């Protein structure tokens, strides 16, 4: 089917704009009208939305598989993204290959959309490497674990794009907890002062491990950016279409010399912080249940079915495809090799450092002692 997604709202006009945030697909899958953001997705066809739906299903399936791998002792740790699929897929799928992402560690769906190979998603979590991939091969830096640090890197990269006369954009992904870090405020100050083509994409998933967002912010996080001179958008992070619209508008501003935009994608971390966490100690199950009802996948499914795009047959084939990806992912993970002991000295420096060279030769001699 090739009709575009906004058709239904324009026909029925059933529901009006959501005052809380930008929302184009409500939790029931009703397509809402939004004068400001509809134009940004007016070209999205039913088939394209079905393709996003497939992404959502696949990244959730990868996430489930990774948690299973951790429970089976194959990964040391895993940070699940359950509930945040739409925020990540909706934004990442709008980027160009020449844009550059600087993320935190939960952005595995973003990495998937950027083309990171499946086993590369878990090299770090299996402990076989310090990071998973060559950033330049996919236009995405490997995750920064220090909270908020990458927002400055994105800003610097964006300033570089501007100096080069390129219209590429840098995107910083971070969470609500990160907004308390000084680096994030500094990044916004620098980005505003230098009019850097950067998007600050904050997934407000309501939790920083056990600390609720109310400890980080007394007002909606999106309200903070205008104080730095940066326009902001508060968007339903569980609505893949709205996230896409918001990101497209921010990209357009950045590419055309308008500088940075702050996007707060309101979502919810339905799993633990990582597989080491125990949310039963701090999460109210009633609230968790409410967010389950706002699931980012169900609403797309409901809409696509109502439009006649998603049939039982297509849904089954997407599920098969997701299972196949999960199987490839598992095989790739189990096939990752442990590094050689002497490789711990590799790449500490780009050029020889006599101190490291001495320690390496001493360790080499020690290891060779076992062969005698």
């Amino acid at each position, binding site marked *: 089917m090739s009709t575009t997604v906004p058709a239904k709202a324009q026909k029925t006009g059933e529901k009006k704009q959501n005052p809380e945030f930008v929302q184009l697909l409500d939790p029931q899958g009703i397509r809402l009208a939004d004068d400001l953001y509809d134009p940004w997705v007016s070209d999205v066809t039913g088939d394209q939305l079905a393709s996003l739906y497939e992404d959502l299903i696949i990244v959730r399936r990868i996430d489930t598989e990774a948690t299973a791998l951790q429970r089976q002792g194959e990964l040391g740790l895993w940070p699940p993204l359950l509930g945040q699929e739409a925020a990540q897929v909706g934004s990442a799928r709008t980027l160009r290959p020449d844009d550059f992402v600087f993320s935190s560690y939960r952005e595995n769906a973003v990495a998937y959309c950027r083309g990171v190979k499946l086993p590369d998603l878990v090299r770090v979590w299996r402990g076989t490497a*310090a990071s998973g991939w060559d950033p330049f091969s996919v236009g995405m830096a*490997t995750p920064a674990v220090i909270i908020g640090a990458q927002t400055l*890197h994105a800003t610097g990269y964006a*300033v*570089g794009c501007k100096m*080069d006369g390129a219209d590429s954009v840098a995107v910083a992904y971070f969470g609500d907890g990160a907004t308390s870090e000084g680096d994030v405020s*500094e990044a916004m100050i620098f980005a505003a002062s230098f009019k850097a083509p950067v998007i600050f994409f904050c997934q407000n998933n309501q939790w920083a491990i056990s600390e609720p967002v109310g400890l980080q912010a007394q007002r909606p996080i999106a309200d903070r950016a205008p104080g730095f001179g940066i326009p902001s958008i508060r968007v339903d992070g569980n609505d893949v279409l709205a996230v896409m619209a918001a990101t497209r508008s921010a990209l357009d501003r950045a590419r055309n010399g308008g500088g940075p935009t702050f996007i707060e994608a309101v979502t919810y971390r339905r799993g633990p912080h990582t597989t080491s966490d125990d949310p039963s100690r701090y999460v109210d199950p009633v609230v968790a249940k409410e967010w389950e009802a706002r699931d980012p996948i169900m609403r797309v499914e409901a809409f696509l079915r109502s439009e006649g795009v998603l049939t039982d047959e297509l849904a089954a084939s997407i599920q098969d495809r997701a299972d196949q990806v999960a199987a490839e992912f598992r095989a790739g993970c189990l096939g990752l090799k442990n590094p050689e002991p002497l490789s711990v000295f590799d790449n500490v420096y780009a050029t020889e450092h*006599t101190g*490291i060279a001495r320690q390496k030769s001493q360790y080499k001699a020690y290891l060779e002692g076992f062969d005698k």
Partner: protein
Amino acid sequence: MTELTLAKALGSGLRRALTDDDKVVLLGEDIGKLGGVFRVTDGLQRDFGPDRVIDTPLAEAGIIGMAVGLAFRGYRPVCEIQFDGFIYPGFDQIVAQVAKLHYRTAGNVRMPLTIRVPYGGGIGAVEHHSESPEAYFAHTAGLRVVTCSTPQDAHSMLREAIASDDPVLFFEPKRRYWTKGDVDEDAVGLPMGKARVVVEGTDVTLVTYGPLVATALDAAVAAADDGISIEVIDLRSLSPVDFDTVAASVQKTGRLVITHEASESGGLGAEIAATLTDRCFYYLESAPVRITGFDVPYPAASWRIISCQILTAFLMGLIVRLVV
């Protein structure tokens, strides 16, 4: 060959780097119209423009973090930290990002940053303006740490640091900014990783770097009057340390004194004493000795200026005790 102050020699090094490589950009507070609080970048923004000599907001983490992003984009940033004691807000970005990105990314991302830091005391400044924080950085894998003591080294080593594909902490002995010396911009000098034997001697090896090289030379002259021959070594590089040059000297003299302005515990002196004891144990006539700043915050300016003046005499007295 031109006679320049150490500060001017740094400025001419930056000028050459900006001229030779259009990926070199300077970032820092007040480095534009003002030319930096020590005027090291004097005239550079006028000549290279505000896109290459960038006045930044007052945030050290921001300066370093932005430089990391520029390095991702293929730039070669040179950051100025205004004073030693101001580097700590940027410490996380330096230690957790700049130092580790090449390692983290299996060599895919290079971090050719140079971070210039005026350091050390003796200029009568208030708190946070007289510190010697070099050991923190020499302790961090992934960073190179160097310091200069002459205008020629200031020029040549800074250009080498900027051209390096590794991140370099470049410590500038601010008390010596006004020291004059001949600078040959085209000289092919000693590589920045090598120590220099500044004065040859036979009785004691005196190892130092940065601001205290001149003090050590004074001590050597004074000692010569007493018939004691001191070999003075300017380390130049604190990571890596050129232990070969120091060891060759200690094997000749049999005695080792290390002096630095930074405090004693966990300092470079401890590292050098330990390594040289290991490497030169059978050559040593006496235990290696450290003469350093006390393990106290940098004291009020007037006291310390006096203490700098007496340091030469202090060094001398100690060396005489060692030898006699």
